[in-house]
């Protein structure tokens, strides 16, 4: 049966028999006394289009049939750290984009890219236009080491390094100097391991990913052959997870280079560890201490690159070459551990050691920044003070994602976190704590404001044009996409 015939017969059935849809429409019109059904619906504005923003939107739309959600994003492109943080060689983690795309294309959801909240429009203005505003703009700053020499050329934050190889427009000009043999990474979380892996991966692997072309070319010329991943405490406190560690252990053409003495107390502590920590520690012990079999021994002897953890070390100074034109190395304080398990802390012993290196990457944590003076912000913890997602002392204001709990957690963590905030918001709407009875203009008034200020939002279909261009560009080089690297290029594609 032809598709159009099927459609006609369905329509006939639909219009003759079904009253539900039409009846609700009439009821809606009657109740509001206005032509549009949607003017009485609760309107929520979400600032930030990463996982936190999208998962909050997803839950809101599902929980209440009347909620309309508008997502504002500073860049022309959505998805936040899924696009700019997840490593290029982890494409499956990015599958979540399909879920977010469904949400964005839902009839009660709209995406407005290229809108800088805080600059193009204020939080106060958003609060006037919407019943509720959810802040999910994440953590765009980073924790600094706070040591002399941190600002020398050759020292980068992991956030910027990752942004560089992932095509974040603000990191395009980073041009890290990869002409040295040794790189030292401070921090031992998954981001640190991502950086190490990208620095040491065979180019044949990287060239099939969505890593940016300039980064690929720089890495192809890279002289870096040795990466040390340094942490303040010991093996049992390491912050990375087993998947990332396994990837390092199995990285082609590399071999591990650990200090056996670092693992002295670890074997005895194994039996008391919870399962995730135990499996991770076992893998580390095996890699560091076990005598490899013949095949593995041969593989290691042929490897041209090395990587290793260094424990009980804190940075105290980045050392410059005499000419001060580049760095010569890093001075590390030697620590000892007091206490055990997650709560153990590093205590200085007074000893230091110098490590020669030409590249230092500081991977000690991202940090949220305040967006607007009218929004409460805890500068010590670098989060927005809140209770279950409700911003303290600010009715109608909510937060989700890293901005709410601090910058740690994988996509699954952020998902639960965002669902939680959405639940709080829905509770407040249902209970009347949040008054949604009076109509609010929502995007109508904000769009008018933006137009007056010469700001043109990028819609989701505009993003899809960018998406298609990127995928098409990637085709010829066997990459899933070739990312556009500047906001100008993105806008040009979006609006042509």
């Amino acid at each position, binding site marked *: 049966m032809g598709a159009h015939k099927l459609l006609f017969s369905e329509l006939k059935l639909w219009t003759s028999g079904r009253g539900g849809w039409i009846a609700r429409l009439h009821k809606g019109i009657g109740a509001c006394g206005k032509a549009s059904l949607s003017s009485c619906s609760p309107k929520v504005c979400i600032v930030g289009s990463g996982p936190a923003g999208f998962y909050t939107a997803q839950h809101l739309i599902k929980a209440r049939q009347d909620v309309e959600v508008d997502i504002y994003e500073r860049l022309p492109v959505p998805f936040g750290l899924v696009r700019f943080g997840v490593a290029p060689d982890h494409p499956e*983690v990015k599958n979540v984009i399909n879920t977010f795309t469904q949400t964005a294309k839902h009839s009660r959801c709209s995406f407005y890219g290229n809108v800088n909240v805080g600059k193009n429009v204020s939080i106060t203005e958003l609060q006037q236009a919407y019943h509720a505003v959810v802040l999910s703009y994440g953590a765009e700053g980073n924790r600094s080491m706070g040591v002399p020499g941190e600002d020398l050329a050759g020292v980068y934050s992991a956030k910027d390094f990752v942004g560089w190889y992932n095509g974040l427009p603000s990191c395009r000009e980073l041009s890290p100097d990869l002409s040295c043999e040794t790189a030292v990474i401070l921090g031992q979380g998954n981001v640190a391991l991502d950086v190490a892996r990208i620095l040491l991966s065979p180019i044949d692997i990287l060239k099939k990913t969505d890593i940016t072309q300039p980064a690929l070319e720089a890495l192809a010329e890279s002289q870096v052959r040795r990466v040390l991943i340094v942490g303040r405490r010991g093996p049992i406190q390491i912050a990375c997870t087993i998947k990332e560690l396994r990837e390092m252990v199995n990285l082609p053409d590399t071999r591990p280079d650990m200090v056996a003495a670092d693992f002295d107390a670890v074997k005895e502590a194994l039996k008391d560890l919870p399962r995730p920590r135990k499996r991770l520690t076992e893998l580390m012990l095996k890699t560091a201490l076990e005598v490899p079999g013949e095949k593995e021994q041969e593989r290691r002897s042929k490897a041209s690159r090395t990587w290793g953890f260094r424990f009980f070390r804190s940075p105290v100074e980045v050392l410059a070459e005499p000419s001060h034109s580049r760095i010569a190395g890093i001075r590390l304080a030697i620590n000892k551990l007091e206490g055990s398990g997650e709560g153990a802390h590093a205590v200085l012993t007074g000893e230091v050691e110098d490590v020669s290196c030409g590249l230092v990457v500081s991977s000690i944590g991202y940090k949220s920044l305040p967006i607007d003076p009218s929004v409460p912000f805890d500068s010590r913890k670098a989060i927005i003070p809140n209770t279950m997602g409700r911003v303290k002392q600010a009715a109608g204001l909510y937060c989700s994602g890293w901005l*709410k709990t601090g910058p740690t957690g994988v996509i699954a963590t952020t998902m639960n976190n965002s669902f939680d905030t959405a639940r709080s918001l829905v509770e407040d709407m249902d209970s009347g704590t949040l008054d949604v009875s009076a109509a609010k203009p929502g995007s109508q008034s904000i769009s008018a404001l933006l137009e007056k200020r010469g700001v043109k939002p990028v819609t989701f279909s505009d993003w899809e044009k960018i998406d298609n261009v990127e995928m098409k560009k990637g085709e010829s080089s066997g990459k899933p996409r070739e990312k556009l690297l500047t906001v100008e290029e993105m806008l040009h594609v979006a609006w042509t």
Partner: protein
Amino acid sequence: MAASAAVRSSMGLTLRLSRVIPDCSTCPLFRLKCNAKNAANLQRKGSFDSFRTINRHLQTSIGLYHSEEGSSNAEDPEDVVNVVYIDRSGQRIPVKAKVGDNVLYLAHKHGIDLEGACEASLACSTCHVYVSAAHFDKLPEPEEREDDMLDMAPMLQENSRLGCQIILTPELDGIELTLPKVTRNFYVDGHVPKPH
């Protein structure tokens, strides 16, 4: 077949009345989609399903063939596997599934709140479920990659598995899959920094 359809439609009705999922059946395009999909299945076995359904047909390799064929054609009673999902509010949702069905997609088909962020590629832990004790040991051992992902799931238990890795067999008849309750206070009080 009729019984399973009745269970499904009553469960679906419950979910529609509670407005968890939209009422697709009032839309004329719903039946058009269903008819077209059945016709397309005969031609495109095992290929990606490009229709975007509300219940999210996911593009991935595991169980795709089975999810396309779906439990809607469970003719043979020996093929039927009774499954109970227990959602986060404790509600029991019985489902009549088929041998070969994937627990994650089955949940989606029935509007159950089980996320599958990475689309069954063992790159997340959002489809984490607890398996009933009587059936846990009947599952094949998890591969290392599944264990690695499970390690990241909050509130890991002895009987934890990833839903996207569970394929139904006749021995699993009666299996009960509980969705972990992530408590309200989990991320506010006692927040433990997690890796990222």
